[in-house]
């Protein structure tokens, strides 16, 4: 298997996506190794979610490829999807189902059955503290619990690659802390991509960060490299410098 540490897990090559007139992602390339946590940063509407949707095979790229553990997502989507755990933005799930039946459904699709399925579910339930709500329907849960159910769904098959779209968005500080420690815990063996607006998160859990704005990759480096872009050695400041510089350049091009 490809569980070997530090081998390339996800390779994004010149990815491009156009929705009609809107050029959402422009020639984006990067790669993520096992043992890396990649923070995916950028203003709203920058193309972060679109890129993640293409990596996970939900959207088809207009051009470019995504290779996950040696499999091309457009040629062999099922293989790619089996090795990825994906938490879509807002952690959608089937509201009318109970937590347990939802997790059983996911486990079944992920190819588990019998006692192995029970083991998987109980281990993930213990890890994410879902015991108290197992029999409740998902629509009756609080936002924090809904997000946890989404996390449980994401890691139930112990995937090699984790992709999470704003996993901490809208959670209270304690819940954010929980999610972060969970990600840290898993970081050693997996390749993880998370998108976030919270820049302190990058410092807390990411080993690398990339910034995209208007669909273009503007920065790819470690959090400390990112911080050094700012005179104040501040990550927020660095983010602002990189993204606004881009907008200014675009403005100049538009005016000339």
């Amino acid at each position, binding site marked *: 298997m490809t569980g070997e540490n530090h081998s390339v897990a996800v390779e994004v090559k010149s990815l491009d996506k156009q*929705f009609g007139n809107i050029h959402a992602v422009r020639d984006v390339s990067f790669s993520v190794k096992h043992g890396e946590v990649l923070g995916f940063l950028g203003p709203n509407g920058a193309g972060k979610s679109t890129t993640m*949707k293409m990596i996970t*095979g939900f*959207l088809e790229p207009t051009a470019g490829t995504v290779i996950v553990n040696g499999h091309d997502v457009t040629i062999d989507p099922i293989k790619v999807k089996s090795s990825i755990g994906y938490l879509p933005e807002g952690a959608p799930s089937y509201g009318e189902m109970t937590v347990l039946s939802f997790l059983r*459904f996911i486990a079944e699709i992920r190819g588990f059955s019998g006692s192995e399925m029970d083991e998987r579910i109980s281990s993930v339930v213990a890890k994410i503290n879902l015991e108290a709500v197992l029999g409740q*329907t998902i629509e009756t849960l609080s936002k924090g619990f809904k997000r946890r159910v989404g996390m449980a769904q994401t890691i139930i098959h112990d995937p090699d690659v984790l992709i999470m779209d704003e996993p901490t968005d809208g959670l209270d500080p304690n819940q954010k802390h929980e999610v972060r420690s969970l990600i840290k815990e898993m970081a050693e063996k997996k390749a993880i991509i998370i998108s976030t607006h919270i820049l302190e998160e990058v410092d807390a859990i990411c080993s690398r960060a990339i910034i995209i704005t208007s669909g273009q990759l503007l920065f790819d480096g470690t959090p400390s490299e990112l911080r050094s872009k700012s005179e104040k050695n501040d990550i927020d400041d660095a983010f602002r410098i990189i993204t606004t510089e881009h907008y200014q350049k675009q403005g100049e091009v538009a005016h000339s």
Partner: protein
Amino acid sequence: MNNVIAIMKRELYGYFSTPVAYVFIVVFLFLTGIFTFYLGAFYERAQADLEPFFRFHPWLYLFLIPAIAMRLWSEERKSGTIELLMTLPISIGEAVCGKFLAAWCFTGIAIVLTFPIWITVNYLGNPDNTVIFASYLGSFLMAGGFLAIGSCISAITKSQVIAFVISVVICFLFVLSGFPLVLDFFQGWAPPVIVDAVASFSFLTHFDSIKKGVIDLRDLIYFGVLIVFWLYANVIVIDSRKAS
């Protein structure tokens, strides 16, 4: 195959954990009863058969089946769960089949629950039970045809209301395609081959012949091809959304 069953189970769970299933079954049984006894004059005819019962099935299905099918994909689109579903390691075909089979299974349950009328007619007289069996089979197949259309249409839109309305219209054309209302439209200009072809699309024509107790292979093939065609279109619709 396991994936199809998993999707199917989840979908059936969806029907029965919300009031949809119960409302549908009650309304279906209630309306079949009314149609059979009042409009169909079940007693007054004094004949031991279920013709007045089956006669109204196409018309009931015309409104009830799109109501079942409309949620199949529209709801997934609206709630965003389609992103979850389509990033699981399943093919689009498996998802389409699983959902369709769940809806068909559910309709089958509703049809089976009309069994008291079969018992009643046997109690009152000596009906030809093979004809009744054939009619049940025909009704179930026809329901599958309506469902496949509804499923495909629901994949096009986020709005269940739009899915419902468009499905009803398309199903209506299929029910009536053997009738002057539709045929007159073609008669003026189209060659007779096309007019005949359109006429042969009619749900009513095929259901009527099965209803008489003759299970003709051609009628079975008709419904089979119809279902496969619309489910295939369903797969294409979902696949094309990936690229847009």
